[in-house]
């Protein structure tokens, strides 16, 4: 059976900026698949190419074995696309928007009425269905957008940053809804720069950075692959470079420690990869005490998806995010996104 979604060697540049250098992944039917990466990594561009909003420079895109580039209409029929920014017509009511949506997917009248009633009930927005969308809260807009995207019963639902800007309650509601959809057989592709979101929802994940897939698999496998436990150590709140370096040299020689990375973005805190050993923390603390180094904070944890990202790129997701914020030309990106 063909994968529900196939993306192979995708490439897309804007002028001389390579937004997507080489992205490949395959999603099995019924799976929730997460594309994780910092803003500007190429997630949205990948999705826009898949949803026929952009023509890639090179690569293969398939939905249920149908080539997106050769038969875009068939692909569109099978896709539901939920953009990051909810674009509703604020003058229309929710129901009118859904009616428009049903018509552009060519649902017969009776079926359209049934589906609209069904989706309004499912997303619990019946009571506001006849109010103008301009009066909706952020969470209500997202629900309406979900209802619109699912109206034609797409085999594959694609969501770009589904919970950005939502309150915790709405976010949980969206998560639960997506899980329910998956149980009913819908394949889901979502992008996120929230580790938590991908960890909570996705059966498999591809971590994407600077337009390339740097790692992919189940979250558990990815974490197991990087191995060991993590110790985050802060000698002082803001540790001087020299002190951080000497502490690193000291700790690298401990038998329990596998690797030490100085995280300059977090006040020169030290990120240690240690053997999965209950005594690791004690060993590190003893060594510090012997060298007369103070401890501002120390904690041990199992590897997270962020550690997977850190291991592959040498920086945490949040740091990448912050580094990207200053460099991106959001206005220019908006123009590129405009069609």
């Amino acid at each position, binding site marked *: 059976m063909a994968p*529900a979604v196939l993306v192979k060697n995708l490439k897309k540049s804007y002028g001389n900026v390579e937004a997507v250098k080489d992205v490949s992944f395959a999603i099995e039917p019924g799976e929730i698949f997460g594309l994780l990466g910092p803003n500007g990594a190429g997630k949205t561009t990948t999705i826009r190419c898949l949803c026929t909003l952009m023509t890639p420079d090179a690569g293969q895109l398939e939905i*249920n074995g149908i080539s997106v580039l050769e038969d875009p*209409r068939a692909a569109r029929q099978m896709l539901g696309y939920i953009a990051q920014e909810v674009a509703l017509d604020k*003058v229309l009511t929710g129901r009118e928007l859904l009616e428009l949506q049903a018509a552009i997917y*060519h649902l017969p009248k009776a079926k359209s009425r049934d589906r609209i009633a069904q989706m309004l009930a499912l997303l619990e927005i019946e009571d506001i269905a006849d109010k103008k969308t301009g009066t909706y809260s952020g969470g209500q807009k997202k629900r309406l957008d979900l209802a619109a995207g699912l109206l034609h019963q797409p085999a594959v639902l694609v969501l770009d940053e589904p919970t950005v800007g939502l309150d915790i309650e709405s976010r949980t509601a969206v998560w639960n809804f997506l899980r329910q959809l998956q149980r*009913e057989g819908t394949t889901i592709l979502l992008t996120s720069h929230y580790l938590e979101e991908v960890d909570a929802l996705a059966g498999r994940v591809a971590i994407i950075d600077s337009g390339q897939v740097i790692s992919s698999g189940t979250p558990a496998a990815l974490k197991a692959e990087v191995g060991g436990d993590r110790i985050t150590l802060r000698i002082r709140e803001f540790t001087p470079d020299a002190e951080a370096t000497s502490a690193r040299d000291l700790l690298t020689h401990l038998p329990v420690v596998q690797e030490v990375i100085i995280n300059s973005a977090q006040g020169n805190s030290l990120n240690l990869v240690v053997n999965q050993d209950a005594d690791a923390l004690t060993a590190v603390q003893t060594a510090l005490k012997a060298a007369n180094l103070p401890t501002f904070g120390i904690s041990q944890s199992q590897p997270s998806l962020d550690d997977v990202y850190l291991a592959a790129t040498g920086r945490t997701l949040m740091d990448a995010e912050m580094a990207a914020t200053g460099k991106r030309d959001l206005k220019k990106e908006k123009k590129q996104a405009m069609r």
Partner: protein
Amino acid sequence: MSQSIASNPVSTSAATLPTPGTAEFIQETLALTRRLFIQLQRRPTTLVAGIIQPLMWLVLFGALFQNVPSGLFGESQNYGQFLGAGIIVFTAFAGALNAGLPVMFDREFGFLNRLLVAPLASRFSIVLASALFIATLSLIQTSAIVILSAFLGAGLPGPAGLLLMTLIVLTLVFGVTALSLGLAFALPGHIELLAVIFITNLPLLFASTALVPLSFMPPWLQVVASLNPLSYAIEPIRYIYLHPDWQFSSVIMQTPFADISLAIALLILFSFSALAFITIRPLIDRRIS
């Protein structure tokens, strides 16, 4: 719940997807047109202003030249009568020129993406919906002007004349709407679109026969006005108003190049609109398909 809330991957295969036909095209075009009319209904300001503005033109501008010697403006009895045709055409033109704005805002707000990810039978339905909407608006405006003109003493053409006037207005509206939509897809944003609308609007009015006849103009402006498609909509309507016995062979306009009959004027207008459609087609296709 008997029906699955989500998809049924087995049934949603490409094999079951019917080839898009006329029924689908009509369905999507009607839905898109309906959206524009709902917007109009909930925000009627545009329509109200769009009716009041040409009426004020007619009353105020007409009064401005009320006392010119009769017969100065060709065969017209008074300036108000002369002006009516100009206002009808200019109003329709200005309305059609703005047709691109809603599409531009849909682009900017991302609403257009909602349409573009849908399996539309033809993306030309987006264009057609705008054209239908603007055409309806123009006909409402035109009716208002025709009725007020009649009260101001300009008379009323016969049924055939009114029908031909409708056809002329629609032809112009479709051509200009096409150009405006082409711009809405080609220009980077609404600021640029508004700038183009501003610099096109009034010059095209002044360089046409809307306000004065060709014979008033210096030779260079006569040439410009004779190349202006608006003149080829204005002069036929003016002629129909003044000559209940109009014929397609009647000479309605003496340009520096040639005498233009009613039939030739209509042909030129029709060619202009057809050309506009042909020109923007690749522009729209490149952007949205």
